């Protein structure tokens, strides 16, 4: 496996803060897309912004990417101010935007070459680097193809390869796997894991809980432009949810009608349109308790708590509507 990140310092320094936001605000007219958030990202970690659409994740990412002026508060990337040192900051960042923004008029390898030239790299440098990155993105055989002949997953991998052309210290990924099929997602996660192991700092947004749990060391949950919780996936789950969840489906239109049946079984109950979620520490024990009451649900399932449950508990809403 080629290492596309040769120039990365491997050992994290104690006080190596790469992104630091304090009271960060972004407004569009009257609308406050980001409403005073505090974020600190350290070198080498994978940091996630989790939240539904419109939570302010992308606006935050654009400010961190030094392409969107800060409306209020303080933001430093590598200790630099994006208002004055935009080009210097962007030279050290890799950006994977939500829509790939690939250059459809160019071939796969030309996309890497030209993008590298935007960073002021020489023709020789970008050719060498493009070879490594095509290998990393498993696109070597497609090097001379036009971009529009690639599948969605391949385009995404090319976008990630492109974002690495300048050997960035921080990789910003805005919903990296949205719109990809499950197989393509897993290939992509694998590539991101490799990068993380090589010491690249990952900052990503997602509205997929499994993605956040898979990739992030630490994350913030955002809602309406604010941070509602912060921590590692595991800590968030233990702080805001129970160990297990009992899901119950009944044959009726409104699951609220069955709230009394499960009263007192778990710590709390969430009502979804198609099921009840009973938060308990021991799912099987709760099942027996409910069966003991003579209640026969259409179906039942015991699972571990996920970040979805955390989000539901914190905001009262599902992540994906």
């Amino acid at each position, binding site marked *: 496996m080629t290492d596309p990140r040769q120039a990365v310092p491997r050992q994290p320094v104690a006080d190596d803060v790469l992104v630091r936001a304090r009271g960060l605000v972004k407004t*569009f007219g009257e609308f406050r897309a980001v409403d005073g958030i505090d974020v600190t990202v350290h070198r080498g970690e994978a940091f996630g912004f989790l939240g539904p659409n419109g939570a302010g994740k992308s606006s935050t990412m654009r400010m961190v*990417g030094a*392409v*969107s*002026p800060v409306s209020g508060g303080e933001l*430093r990337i590598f*200790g630099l*101010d994006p*208002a*004055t040192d*935009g*080009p*210097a900051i*962007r*030279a050290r*960042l890799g*950006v994977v*935007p939500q*829509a790939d*923004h*690939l*250059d*459809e*008029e*160019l071939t796969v390898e*030309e996309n890497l*070459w*030209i*993008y590298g*030239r*935007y*960073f*002021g790299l020489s023709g020789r440098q970008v050719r060498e680097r493009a070879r490594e990155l095509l290998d990393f993105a498993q696109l070597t055989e497609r090097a001379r193809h036009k971009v529009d002949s690639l599948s969605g997953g391949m385009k995404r991998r090319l976008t990630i390869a492109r974002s690495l052309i*300048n050997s960035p210290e921080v990789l910003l990924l805005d919903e990296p796997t949205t719109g990809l099929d499950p197989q393509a997602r897993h290939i992509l996660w694998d590539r991101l894991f490799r990068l993380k192991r090589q010491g690249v700092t990952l900052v990503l947004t997602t509205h997929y809980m499994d993605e956040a749990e898979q990739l992030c060391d630490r994350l913030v949950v955002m809602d309406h432009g604010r941070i509602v919780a912060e921590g590692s996936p595991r800590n968030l789950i233990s702080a805001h949810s129970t160990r297990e969840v009992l899901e119950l489906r009944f044959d009726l239109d409104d699951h609220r009608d069955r709230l009394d049946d499960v009263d007192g079984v778990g710590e709390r109950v969430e009502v979804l349109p198609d099921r009840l979620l009973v938060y308990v520490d021991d799912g099987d024990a709760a099942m027996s308790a409910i069966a003991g009451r003579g209640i026969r649900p259409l179906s039942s399932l015991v699972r571990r708590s996920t970040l979805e449950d955390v989000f539901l508990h914190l905001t009262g809403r599902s992540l994906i509507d």
Partner: protein
Amino acid sequence: MTAPTAPAATRRRAAVLPIPAGAGLARMVVLRNITSFRHGWIALVTGFLEPVFYLFSLGVGVGALVPHVTTDRGSVVTYAAFVAPALLAASAMNGAVYDSTFNVFFKMKYAKLYDAMLATPLGPRDIAVGEVSWSLLRGGLYSAAFLLVALLAGVVHSWSALLALPAAVFIGFAFAAVGTFATTFMRSWVDFDYITLAIQPMFLFSTTFFPLSTFPTPLQWVVQATPLYHGVALERALMLGEVDASVLWHVAYLLALGILGVVGASRRIERLLLR
């Protein structure tokens, strides 16, 4: 970070300067366009052929009906010699406008090319300068080829025609800059009819095909206000060897237009894309 006053001062300066930031990497935007163009070289051929077709249709065809024309500066020349400089100026305009409107609009709205560029050290100024430069490079190539054809056709009358090439590039600059600026205001393809509305009458009436003296005086003033008139007058003076001080006035007009366009375009790109 140790001197908190320094960044504040820089920010103030950045806010006062009318020209948005760039990283001095505009040439990479040109390089990108050259790379892309290598896949679509056929467009280069058509861009060259158009003015040549016009030259032979009008110069040879119409020239047979209108043997001689008296220019506004008083010299008597064949119709082909009269119309060739104007076609050079008009093709410089057309090429620049096409590039800076349709192509730039597509890149900005659909390909999101500039969003990708702005995620790198490139700034809005690099994009504006790069796109305009590319347009000039391409226009310069067409103009050189056209001049060669005009020379072979025997319609070039003076050594000052050597300056007609840089002049054509300069005309292209003015139109490409304004074209890019105008494009940043376009909402959809429908708005491009306004461009056609501006370009077509200019192409037909800016003393391209007949002298200014043909117009009644009030209309002469209107014609003299259009940018293409200055381009045509500049090229005609150079190719027919009628150079005098008025050439400076044409140059000044086009220069002002070009600067307005570049500054305006980079500011608009900043406002649209760096929100």
